[in-house]
């Protein structure tokens, strides 16, 4: 009896394996379609769950390199609470499209807006990469990674990207972010906050003031126009104040961050071809 049961089971399994394989073959396009629905054209999931991630669907960098770089990303996240991402894709579609993508789409996928991303586009005739930081006012990424700083990181990455050293470029990207997050608020990069500039400015102003005081020492004026004015015999005889016209001047407000649209918060961007 037992033998009969075992034989029946074997037959069933023998039948199910080819049936399963056939089913798999039939359903495989459906599964594949389901995958493409979860990611965008650049291979980035519609909802990013990880705090740091490298999206490299075409394995441009090796898995060991990816592991090392990701370790750096996670270290940044742990130290500064800034999520770091990298996207390497052949589906870039031009710089303008990436701009819009980063500005209006990518931030919606993020678990936290306190984030920075680099997109490296490897189209056949158009190699392009773009750094973008997000974050609302007061958040680390917005404060520390402004356009100027992203430009600086971008300049350092460019050489490696041109020579195809993508892993080294991403390492430089991580190091650059780590360096600037460590430096603190980017607004202190302004010339007026530079120690040498402040010292020079103070030195010049103080020198002028002290020299004027030194040369005018002993020559204090102690009269004013009111000293000799006879108030009782002085008056305004006639007067008018006539409005003539109004001028309007418009000055663009200089800002290191611009609106990211939707709920994207402030963002800074820096991009270049290589």
């Amino acid at each position, binding site marked *: 009896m037992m033998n009969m049961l075992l034989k029946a089971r074997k037959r069933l399994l023998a039948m199910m394996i080819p049936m399963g394989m056939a089913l798999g073959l039939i359903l495989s396009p459906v599964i594949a379609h389901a995958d493409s629905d979860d990611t965008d054209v650049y291979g980035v999931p519609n909802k990013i769950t990880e705090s740091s991630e490298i999206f490299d669907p075409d394995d441009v960098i090796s898995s060991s390199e990816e592991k090392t770089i990701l370790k750096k990303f996670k270290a940044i996240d742990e130290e500064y609470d800034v999520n770091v991402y990298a996207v390497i894709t052949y589906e870039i579609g031009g710089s303008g499209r990436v701009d819009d993508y980063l500005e209006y789409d990518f931030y919606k996928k993020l678990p936290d807006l306190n984030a920075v991303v680099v997109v490296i586009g490897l189209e056949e005739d158009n190699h392009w990469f773009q750094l973008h930081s997000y974050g609302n006012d007061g958040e680390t990424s917005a404060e520390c990674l402004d356009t100027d700083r992203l430009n600086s990181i971008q300049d350092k990455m460019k050489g490696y990207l041109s020579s195809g050293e993508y892993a080294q470029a991403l390492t430089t990207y991580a190091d650059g972010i780590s360096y600037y997050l460590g*430096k*603190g*608020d980017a607004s*202190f990069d302004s010339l007026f*906050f530079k*120690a040498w500039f*402040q*010292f020079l400015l*103070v*030195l010049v102003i*103080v*020198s002028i*003031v*002290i*020299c004027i*005081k*030194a*040369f005018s*020492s*002993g*020559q*204090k*004026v*102690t*009269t004013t*126009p*009111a*000293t*000799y*004015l*006879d108030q009782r*015999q*002085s*008056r*305004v*005889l*006639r*007067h*008018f*104040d*006539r*409005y*003539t*016209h*109004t*001028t*309007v*001047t*418009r*000055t*663009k*407000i200089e*800002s290191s961050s611009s609106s990211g649209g939707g709920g994207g918060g402030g963002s800074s961007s820096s991009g270049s071809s290589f």
Partner: protein
Amino acid sequence: MTLQFKCPNCGGDMQFDATSGYLKCPHCDHSEKIEGAEMSAEIHVSPDFPHQDQVDETGALVRYQCQNCGAMLVTERNTTATTCSYCGAPVVLSDRLEGTTKPDYVIPFKIPKENADQAFRDWCKKLRYSPSDFKNMVKVKKVEGLYAPFWVYNVSGQGEARAHATISHSHTEGDYEVTETAHYDIYRSVDTFYRGVPADASERLADNLMDLMEPFDYTQMVPFNAPYLTGYMAENFDYNDTQVFPRVQKRVYNYMDDFVRDSIHGYDTVTITDRDYIANRSQSSYCLFPIWMNYVTYKGKDYSFAQNGETGKIVGKPPISWGAVAGYIAGWTFGIFILLRIICVLMGGPLL
């Protein structure tokens, strides 16, 4: 003609005493009130002496004779009071204080020589940018009490002025800061009166130094009387009131600008664009104002400092120590720099 005031007690030469405001005999301390009729001091006049006063060939220097010792007093043309260089007797050259050259008023010295000297030394000690050996061991070559000639004017100023004034408001429109500036054309016609504007009438005394002596307290001003000059140097004016007035006019025009500006209220900016003023003197008085002149030599260079003999205000151009200037620059620079960096750190920025 010279005047010397003799003590009725001991016959000594009396001098004006700044502390009491009386004529005082330095020998017996006898004091005399300076009020013509009540004054019992014996007034000696030079025509009693055999030698006549002489004018030199150029007319620049005039010789008088001291009534005490008979020595020749050689004076400059404008000197009206001096002391005999031989016996130290105070002499007033009264013939130069007559007619048009007679001062209308005088502000007598209020600060005696000793106090003036101490005040000058104290002032020197407070000079921040001068060499320390100058500040602490100033060697005064000569201190001279001088009645300086001034013209004092009452000036009426009339005129019109136009000004351009603005009021600005700013607000934000999207990415733009919009500033709206309203422009106004302002007109004022004014009638002003300035009382007691002084200007020195001496060629020897620097105008800017004398201007800095101001203000003088006119409540202490008294009608001129020769005894106030005894014991001090005094000069007659080199320039008459008509010659000096243009300088005063210029000052009054600036004062009128200020009067116009004070009458324009409620604007962010006011710029006087056009003015048409006229300033006339309604009265001018010839006055003598008390000044202590301190002549100092430091490292071979001469410096002169003037002290208002009434208010005590001291002016002059002291020597500058570049070491002291550099020290102050370094101190203030480091102080402010450290403060800025602390503020920077408190704002979340880096220390350096």
